[in-house]
């Protein structure tokens, strides 16, 4: 397959994954309404770039750059995951690079679609948060939330030494939790195919201009609380049975989300004062 064909295939795959990700549940794309970024979200861009580079330059060749004669050809990919992913034994027994894996695991992903999904969420919620914190405080919060997610997901998991955990989703869940704390009344533009169909009669009745719009706008509070609710039951299962349902670390998502209120330590002083005193201008 030539390069052009590969590119077309990739683009089609992206569309297919977008559809798959948004057919049942809403996929957040951006926050809208009273959103204006007075600062360029450089750190959000940087985090997306670093996550992408780590995967493309370091992990992807082990997955997509080899002739797959057998699964064993994927062993190098496996080795990286099991060396730099997050496992409790690394801390308890002093293996690999120890507690530093909390950072390395945050920038690794299982496959390109894992990366793709996480970055969409980071893009949707991260920019406004960075605007409220400034880039460095935002970075510190992002890393802290990721640590809370990693740490909590192994501390509360009764089964020790199991699968390594990789991905930015714990940190991004923290960003979402912080977003809920600071901007509960914001509106999130989502891609949601079922919602799109359900919304058609409502739009028709309320005489909205674009009845067949593919976007659905949801209140941030509703979307984020629903996100937390979806993570709750699988997390309880992990806590009680020590299992990651379907290979997804829902507990890390939930704990990262719960780290959201920590944002009050990182948000800019003038904004914190406004938050506390409910004063503006």
């Amino acid at each position, binding site marked *: 397959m030539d390069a052009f064909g590969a590119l077309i295939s990739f683009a089609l795959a992206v569309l297919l994954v977008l559809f798959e990700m948004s057919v049942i549940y809403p996929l957040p794309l951006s926050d809208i309404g009273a959103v204006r970024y007075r600062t360029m979200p450089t750190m959000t861009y940087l985090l997306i770039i670093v996550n992408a580079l780590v995967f493309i330059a370091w992990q992807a060749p082990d997955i997509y750059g080899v002739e797959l004669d057998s699964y064993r050809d994927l062993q190098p990919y496996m080795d990286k995951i099991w060396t730099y992913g997050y496992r*409790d*034994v690394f801390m308890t027994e002093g293996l690999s690079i120890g*507690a530093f894996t909390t950072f390395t695991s945050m920038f690794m992903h299982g496959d390109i679609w894992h990366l793709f999904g996480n970055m969409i969420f980071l893009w949707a919620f991260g920019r406004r948060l960075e605007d409220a914190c400034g880039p460095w405080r935002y970075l510190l919060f992002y890393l*802290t939330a990721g640590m809370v997610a990693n740490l909590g997901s192994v501390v509360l998991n009764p089964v020790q030494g199991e699968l390594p955990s990789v991905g930015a989703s714990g940190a991004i869940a923290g960003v979402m939790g912080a977003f809920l704390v600071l901007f509960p009344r914001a509106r999130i533009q989502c891609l949601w195919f079922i919602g799109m169909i359900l919304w058609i009669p409502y739009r028709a009745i309320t005489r909205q201009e674009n009845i067949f719009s593919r976007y659905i706008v949801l209140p941030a509070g509703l979307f984020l609380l629903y996100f937390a609710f979806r993570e709750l039951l699988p997390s309880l299962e992990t806590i009680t049975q020590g299992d990651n349902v379907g290979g997804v670390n829902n507990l890390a998502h939930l704990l990262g989300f719960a780290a959201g209120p920590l944002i009050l*330590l990182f948000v800019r002083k003038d904004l914190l004062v406004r938050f506390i005193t*409910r004063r503006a201008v």
Partner: protein
Amino acid sequence: MNDAQALFREGVLALKEQRDVARARQLITQSLKLDPNNEMAWLWLSRTTDDPARKLQCVERALKINPANDQALALREKLAGGGMSSAAAAPPAPPKRSSIHDRLENASLVHHDTPPEPPAAPPAPAARAPQFMQPEPEVDAAQDPPPEFEALRDLVPEEAIESTQSVKTQNDRLTPEEERQIEKHLAAAEARLAAEDEEAAVEQYVYALQIQVDHPQVMQRAVRLLHQMKYTEDAQELLNRAIEAGTPSLAIHLTAIDVNRMLGNYSKADVLREKVVQMDAIDDAGILKIIDSLLNDVQGARAIELLEKALVKRPNSHDLLMKMADILEDQGRKVQAMGYYERAARAGKRGNRKQADRVLQTFIPVITDHERGSVVLALREAAGFTAAYLFMAWQDSGLNLLRMSPGHWLGVGLSLVGGYCVVTAFSSPQQKGLAALFGGQVPAEPEGGKHTQQVEVKPWEEDIAMPSGPLQDPTSLPILPGWARMIFALVGMALLGVAFYLVFNRAIPLLLNPVEPEIPSILDFIGEG
């Protein structure tokens, strides 16, 4: 049946049955004011006078409308051959005309399918008096109607009486014949103007406007001409007729506003303004022009009302939002102004968004000196560092908080101190007492000054975004001198570095010399986080 036809019928009855010539003349004359194209009315009018010249004049008008009218032809022939030599020899009296205002009255909101043909050539200017000033023709006939006119009553067909239809506006499509008629009237008007007969030109314009009440070209020329002739009220009436007929023309509305203002009819102008700002045809620049005119008249409250109405239709118009915000700010309503600036900033394109942003910079929320000088708020930020370091130390201690070594705790403690130093250097350099201790001075007020007014609102509501920006507001608190801030920064970062080493005192050796973990086969399952 319309008014013109009713008057005409009453006039005929007055003449035939009541023999009231004066009343008949009055009624038919009124009918002709409303509908000057009723050839039968002209013929009946001729019966109300015994002046052969005037009789002939009425007949000529009827023939001008319908050259094939047998009755009129016969009557003209009879008048010409029956002692009309003196009348024929004398210069023809000017055709009966009403004033321009009367012409406008005639331009009723109905029209006939066959408007009067314009004359082929303009008459010589010298032969004309200022016709619009001439009195109504005095018809002094108190005599019985000639028997030859008896039959005329039956010549007015009912179809003709009912042949009127609603007036056309720019919303309606003109027939080719109507377009041709308008062109003819325009050409005739031009010819009249060339002959310096402005009144006759106006008459032609009025005829054209009977076909299409808001014909743009005709209306423009008519209004301009009337205004030049100092007949602005007549221009106003033409415009108002078009508006009452439902013209969609923005230009006509805007002109009507100007004319009404010029004539001191402010309430009418205001009603038109309100209508215009909600029209689809108007653009933002047009609305702003109207708003500016209101502001010039010191009607700020009304300008806000109209802008609110306009914004209902154009909620994302950057220029309207900016104008609204500017007006509100001028009135001291800063909270509302900020809301509109925010909306303008969101609605604007990349270029003009900066304009709203620049204004918003003057609305940057001001933290008070109390908050600037707060040590607690500075420690709050330092606590963010401490939290991060605590989680690092917790993991480094084998995921057991209780097993954290003194080194770990020292690292966590140092992170608080180091974080405080960094925060002091960068974001809280005006803490009370500290700056004065290091010889700090009160910073100069930034250029242009800043708003310091504080207003109670709900800051986290959706409609009011969280403002942001540098802390550039006037302050009376001294700020740490640059050298001191540099020292705080260096010390803080050094402490954070030491703290990092302490909280990762187990992991750093592993980072330098990793210990290979046991890695299972690829066939095992990988959990994703």
